[in-house]
Structures are given as C-alpha cells and as structure tokens.
C-alpha cells in the first residue's frame, strides 16, 4: 500500500518536474534570456598578495599604519568604521599616547549630550570609543551622497567576494566605459552621477574614484605614495579591521593541528595494537573452511538445491 502510494507520488513529482523542465527549456529557446552587460564585462578581482595571506601569514604593521592613514585622510570622510575601537589601533604599533591623540584629534565627534543643557552635542573621542560615523544616520549619509549609502568598512573584506583583492581592484579599477560595451549594450551607458568600474558587480558605482593622484596621502614614515601602493595599503588595513585576530588564530591553529596530528597517530597505533589479534581469533575448521565450502557448493549445484 505504502509502495503504491509512493509510486504514484513519485510519478506525480517527476511529471510536474518534467513539465517545468519542458516549459523552462521552451521559454529559453524561444526567448532566450537577454545577456546582461554586467555578466559579460564584470571582471574578477586582480590578484593581491598581502603579508597576512596564507596559513602562516602575519600583518605587516608598517603597511597597516599606512593603510590607516589612507583611511583616515581619504575614506573616513564618507565611510564609517563602527566596529573598530580607537584602542584597537595599539595592535598596529601605536603607543597609548598616540592612540589618545588620534582619538581626540579625530575630525568627527562622538555623539553625546551637553552636560549642562542636556541638548545633543558632540564630544572628543576617547580611546575606549569606537570610530564615530561621519554621518548621524543612514538618511543623512544618503542625503550627502546622491542617495547612495557608503557602506561601513569594518568588515568589508569579509563581506565581499574576493576580500581584500576585491577592495584593491575596485579602488584602482576606475576606467572609461569601453566602446565595445556601448556598442553591444547601448542602453547600458553609465548614468549621470555614477562611475564605470568593471570590478563592481553591476559595473556602475556611485563612489567617485577615491585615490587619483600619487602623493594624495603623505605617509608619516616617508614611504613613497603611489595610487597602487595606497590602494594596497588600505586594502591591507581593511583586512586587519575585518580580522584583527588573524595572527592569534594562525598561531593557535599551528598548535592545535600538531596536537591533533599526534593524537591521531597515537590513537591509530593504539587502535592497531588493540585490534592486532582480534580477527585472527576465529579459526575455521570443518564445514566453514573455504575448501569444504566450495565442495558443498558444487555438491548442492549438482543436486539442483539452491545454494
């Protein structure tokens, strides 16, 4: 009974799927889905090698400091870093005093109240504060950016396919729209107010190119600043903001991996030892011996008895 109903149910589902398949294929053949400009002209991120790559990667603190400088001088005008606290900057190699100064000098104030009147006011940031957002809220951010919302950058390298390489490619990927695209997809001309960037998913991004000239940021340590270098540095910095515990994680991973490798090997040896004689205990003599079994089978076959 169960089998009969099951049989029918199975045929019904398979049948409906077949209908869906046929209708789907028919639709695709008669009116194939229009190719999208973004499918054809979207580029995968350029490869980016960072010091933190790989299972033994470590952050290059000098690079992180340069990247932080790029963030604070260029990106922080529009992009918040809400999940990072000023005190976290100590991991980059800054001293307590430097961190305190960075916090109190930060151009955006932390929302607070006037202690005398109780009205909304700002106050200077303390090291224990998180980076204050450049805009009070999403509405203000959109109003200031042509209805586009500059995303928070704390986790951006984990929130985008391609990670730090994507960020680097995006920042350096601005280019004029190729003539080929315009010829094939005349409707896909970059709208006013947007910028063509093939590394962006739908090719047209609201952010204007943030890094345009060499020397845009003068690095505190005197390193030369090229657009490419600055982009790499800020990508490395954002890789740190997303994964500040990367180095501890890798280090712990080494101990745990070695431990478990040894535990597996020890365990395997103990297992082999315990089982060493287990299967040999059974000794066969008599009817179950292979030779006798073969004899019995051929005898049965002769007699026509099912074996």
């Amino acid at each position, binding site marked *: 009974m169960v089998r009969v109903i099951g049989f029918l149910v199975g045929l019904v589902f398979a049948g409906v799927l077949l209908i869906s398949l046929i209708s789907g294929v028919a639709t695709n053949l008669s009116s194939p889905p229009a190719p999208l400009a973004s499918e054809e002209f979207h580029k995968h991120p350029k490869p980016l090698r960072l010091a933190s790559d790989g299972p033994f990667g470590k952050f290059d603190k000098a690079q992180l400091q340069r990247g932080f400088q790029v963030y604070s001088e260029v990106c922080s005008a529009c992009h918040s870093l809400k999940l990072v*606290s000023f*005190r976290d900057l100590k991991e980059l190699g800054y001293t307590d005093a430097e961190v305190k100064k960075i916090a109190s000098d930060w151009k955006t104030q932390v929302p607070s109240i006037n202690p005398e009147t109780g009205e909304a006011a700002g106050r200077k940031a*303390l*090291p*224990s504060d998180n980076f204050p957002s450049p805009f009070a809220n999403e509405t203000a951010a959109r109003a200031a950016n042509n209805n586009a919302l500059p995303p928070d950058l704390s986790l951006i390298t984990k929130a985008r396919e391609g990670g730090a390489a994507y960020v680097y490619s995006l920042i350096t990927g601005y280019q004029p729209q190729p003539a080929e695209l315009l010829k094939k997809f005349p409707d896909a001309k970059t709208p006013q107010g947007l910028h063509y960037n093939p590394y962006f998913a739908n090719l047209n991004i609201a952010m204007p190119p943030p890094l345009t000239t060499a020397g845009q940021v003068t690095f505190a340590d005197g390193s030369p600043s090229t657009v490419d270098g600055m982009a790499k540095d800020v990508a490395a910095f954002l890789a740190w903001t997303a994964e500040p515990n990367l180095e501890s994680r890798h280090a712990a991973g080494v101990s745990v991996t070695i*431990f*478990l490798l*040894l*535990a597996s090997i*020890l*365990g395997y*040896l*103990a297992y082999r*030892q*315990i*089982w*060493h*004689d*287990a299967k040999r*205990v059974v000794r066969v003599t008599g009817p179950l011996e292979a030779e006798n079994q073969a004899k019995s089978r051929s005898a049965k076959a002769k007699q026509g008895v099912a074996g």
Partner: protein
Amino acid sequence: MATKAQSAEGPESTETGGDGVRRRDFLNVAAVSFAGVGAVAAIAPLLVQMAPSADVLALATTEIDISKVQPGQGIKTQWRKQPVFVRNLTPKEIAEADAVAVDSLRDPETLAQRTKAGHKNWLITLGVCTHLGCVPLGIGEGENKGPFGGYFCPCHGSMYDTAARIRQGPAPKNLVVPDYAFSTPTMVTIGAKG
C-alpha cells in the same frame, strides 16, 4: 565519551606475551592521556571567555575633568558603572576632618591617608554606602550632608564626615577611596594607580 576517561581495560581474548602487555598498555595509556590533555586544553577558551572582555577592560579607568569644581562643591560622576563623589574640600572642612581623634573612629583613617599629597582638598570616593550599597546624599548643592558635614545615607541613617569617614549609623567602613591619579592638576584618572 565517558569511556575515554576510564582506564583502558586490556583487549579481550587476545594473545598476551609478558612484554606485549606492558607495551600495549603503555601505548593505550599514552593515547588516552594525550587526548585527555587536549580535552583539558580545550576547556581553556570556555573559561577564559568569562573574564571581562576588552571593551569592559577599556573602561577600567575613567578620566574626570575637575577644573570646574569650586571649593565647597562636589560632583557625582561614574567609574566602572558605579557612582563616584569628587569633592573639593574647603579649608574649614579639612580642619574639621583633621580635628577628629582617629582612634575614636570605627574605621580609623586620617584625611591625609584618604587623599593625595599636595591635593589634600580633593576627596574622591565611591558614592556607595558601605552598609548595603545605597548612594548617600550630600554631594550635590542643597543635599542633606548629615550632622558631620559629609554625607548622609537615607536608607538606614549612616552618617559620614567631611573626610567621608563613617561616624554614626550601621555602615562598617569609610566610603571607599578608589585608585586614582592626577594626570594634570585638573584631570584625574580614576582606576589608575597613582
């Protein structure tokens, strides 16, 4: 995995040579102990996560600006989520505190012991009554300072003097003086060892 904790009983119904047993047991014991060490090590993060997290520790110290507190005034502020009284004692209040015989106090302390050298007028204490934890009155303008001119706890009537020492009432100890340090003459870092 309760069985891992049990000692490995010898394998069943197998050959046992004299030496074989010891070698067998050693490997088993080694494997089980190794696993045990791992299990204990795995417990470490589970316990460590209960310790105060970095954001809480970051608030272990608080900087207070005392530039606006005039002599005779006090402010109520916060440190580690608890009330703190910062009081600028007048010379009269300092004299009153020094005049008290220390031995007669329930919790003997001089004003000098409760303040920093060169800043004897700055009395910084927790605003938590040492009886059962209420916030005493007396720090604000017009609040009842009690008969000893310091603080008065309305819950059960503990009365503190101008050095915030317990004089009368059920509280056993003087108001707690936290660790603090003057980073500048007008900025105090509470929680920092001075």
